[in-house]
């Protein structure tokens, strides 16, 4: 059973589609498992100014993609990197236990898109994270 919020984000997904001027794109999951998320980010001056997604997967996969992109939009890259799968699930008023992996995928998708952004700048995500810790 899905929460009202999950159903809302599934029925009316936010930020769905390709982001034409994205400067970071991440794709996680695989078709064998039945979930693939492609996350697009546009980062300017350390801020995620825009983001979108394309997802192949179940209701929870689509809803977590929608919610995760909502949660990082307008946030700093550092904040976006700190987005946890639990935060995505909580924002959706919870997910059935069998669907928690969808929220993990959403978290990984965001990280992967940001990693791609840094890679294009010639920066490893690891160094960014380390600098952040210090």
């Amino acid at each position: 059973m899905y929460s009202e919020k999950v159903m809302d984000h599934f029925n009316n997904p936010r930020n769905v589609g390709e982001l034409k001027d994205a400067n970071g794109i991440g794709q996680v999951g695989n078709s064998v498992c039945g979930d693939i998320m492609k996350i697009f980010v546009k980062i300017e001056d350390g801020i995620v100014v825009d983001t979108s997604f394309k997802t192949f997967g179940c209701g929870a996969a689509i809803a977590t993609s929608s919610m995760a992109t909502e949660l990082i939009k307008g946030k700093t890259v550092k904040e976006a990197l700190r987005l946890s799968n639990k935060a995505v699930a909580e924002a959706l008023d919870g997910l059935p236990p069998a669907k928690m992996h969808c929220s993990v995928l959403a978290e990984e998708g965001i990280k992967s898109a940001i990693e791609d952004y840094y890679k294009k700048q010639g920066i490893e995500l690891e160094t960014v994270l380390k600098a952040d810790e210090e």
Partner: protein
Amino acid sequence: MSGIIYADNAATTRLSRCALDAMMPFLTDDFGNPSTVYAPGRTAKKAVESARFKVAAAIGAKPEEIYFTAGGTESDNWAIKSTAALKKEKGKHIISTAIEHHAVLHTLQSLQKRGYEVTFLGVDRAGNISLEELRSAIRPDTILITVMTANNEIGTILPVKEIGEIAHEAGVLFHSDAVQAVGHIPINVAQMNIDLLSLSGHKFKGPKGVGALYVKKGLRLPSGMHGGAQERGLRSGTENVPGIVGLAAALEDAVTHIDANMTKVSVMRDALIKGLTKIPHSRLTGDPVNRLPGTASFVFECIEGESMVLLLDQNGICASSGSACSSGSLDPSHVLLAIGLPHEIAHGSLRLTINEDNTQEDIDTILEKMPRIIQRLRDMSPLWEEKNAEVK
């Protein structure tokens, strides 16, 4: 449920009016226990015996060969476990298929843990087994062949009569899970060489929680439930009188109208198949010809089944899917994998199961809504994007 198009009749069906009417007295005034000697008990007993007569007539059995149970799952468990116990001196080998319902599959797996050996015959793309393969799988220690009459996910009808013949030539007992078939296609246990057959009330517009096991006369099957010795000592527990009466009324009705229903339903099914396989990158699952009259099952590439089911629900249409997300595991259904579908395509399965209560308008609505639902999901699917890039 007004305004809803119900196309998941393989999951369960709406109780028929005739079943409800038959049940009502036993839910109200005629509440007696069939094991008692006074008048209300006798009324209940008579009703159960009359139901047994009707069920027997519907499947070509004798009344004393019918035992009422709590449903298809119990019938399958009882038939398989008790046969295994009965024949353990002869051997511990059982033959089945890769596409059985979980009630059979998991029962067999429980026996495997207790030292029984099970050969699961593979199926071809259409979901059919090879009779040659079946023949060569039989060993001196084979005690049971259990093969479903028709598959619940892809609708394929299996060659039960021939399987029974092969079993009997080899002196092996034959059980068939006919839960999806009874009331929908003609079944005659005698002509079809069946020793044990499971059926379930709610699949043919009877009530839930009641089923039956046919046990061929002379087969001394051990008791499935110990207690007060109801059902001639083989299945104890006070009879579910309203359930039994409802099951029998629904089955009698189904069998009386079986020819007309099969014609009507298969015409609507074929319209669904014709319309939905026009959608690019879609295909029918199961045998194209030899299939249940009401089952239209498909896979649509690049989208996931549960998402389709949810969007259909949003449009007032009830359907189901064998995708991983619907099954609660990470793998798509064992049936879709057994017919050779790759994981990524099996995830996009959809099953529409109709019956005689559906109308041509229902079919038209489904055919109108489906392409839009599929396009909507494909538009947001990265797999679809990749597929189109390949084409270009």
